[in-house]
């Protein structure tokens, strides 16, 4: 079994703020991440796919196809954007790395078969690092 992992990056701003909570509660919960004008990160995203070896190419995943998919669905819409304002979904859901991870995984899963129509490779998981010290991992099976 082969697992192929590709690393990507994007830079974006966000503000952690829940519309379910009061100003005071948001401030208490999120601290400086709740500062009103937001702040930014250099996000690192790892996308892992698994599959058997293709006998002709000696590869398990065509990384050019994977790159096109990730660039189109994740990097292009997220890079140098304000996530709260410019990425659908984060107007009402706080753009924590947990929620960003779910969103990235959902976008890749939704478009996977169009790019990889065969049985393999399968999307296995994604990891997102907000900073080098905070890393979040989501299995493709954890979401619809």
């Amino acid at each position, binding site marked *: *079994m082969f697992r192929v992992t590709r690393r990507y990056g994007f830079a974006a701003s966000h503000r952690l703020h829940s519309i379910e909570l009061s100003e005071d509660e948001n401030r208490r919960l999120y601290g400086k991440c709740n500062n009103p004008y937001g702040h930014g990160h250099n996000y690192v995203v790892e996308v892992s796919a698994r*599959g058997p*070896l293709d006998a002709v*190419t*000696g590869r398990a995943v065509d990384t050019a196809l994977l790159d096109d998919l990730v660039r189109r669905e994740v990097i292009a819409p997220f890079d140098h954007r304000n996530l709260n304002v410019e990425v659908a979904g984060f107007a009402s859901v706080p753009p924590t790395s947990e929620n960003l991870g779910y969103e990235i995984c959902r976008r890749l899963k939704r478009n996977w078969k169009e790019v990889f129509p065969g049985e393999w490779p399968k999307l296995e998981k994604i990891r997102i690092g907000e900073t080098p010290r905070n890393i979040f991992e989501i299995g493709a099976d954890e979401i619809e």
Partner: protein
Amino acid sequence: MVITRKVEFSASHVCRNPELSDAENQRLFGMAANPHGHGHNYVVEVSLRGDPDPVTGMVLDLKELKEILRREIVEPYDHRFLNYEVPPFDREVPTTENIARDIWRRLEPRFAGRTGQLHGVRVYETPDLYVDYFGELPCSA
């Protein structure tokens, strides 16, 4: 418990399948098919799974692991043109996947019957692309 040790080697390669046309190779492998080859600083992480020996407190003596990795990986691979100098890449495309599998095959017998069993081989071709190989397991495992 899983323990991991890292080694590095630098090598050149070209990704082409001789049974395919130039255009087809270019389409499949892109710049990696450029005929005179190119190189990478490969990083290999080898993971062993096992319980620490009750006397030594070690899964495997790291000095010994270091020597095995030097002999089985660095010695044959470092500063070589993989297609020309390192079998099986005279007949297999030296993709990151095939390199990970070849390293697994070289290492696995070295740990047969030991407390630490080979668990996984991770090969970084660049910091942005790596492959994990866990042996001849079905993909659903």
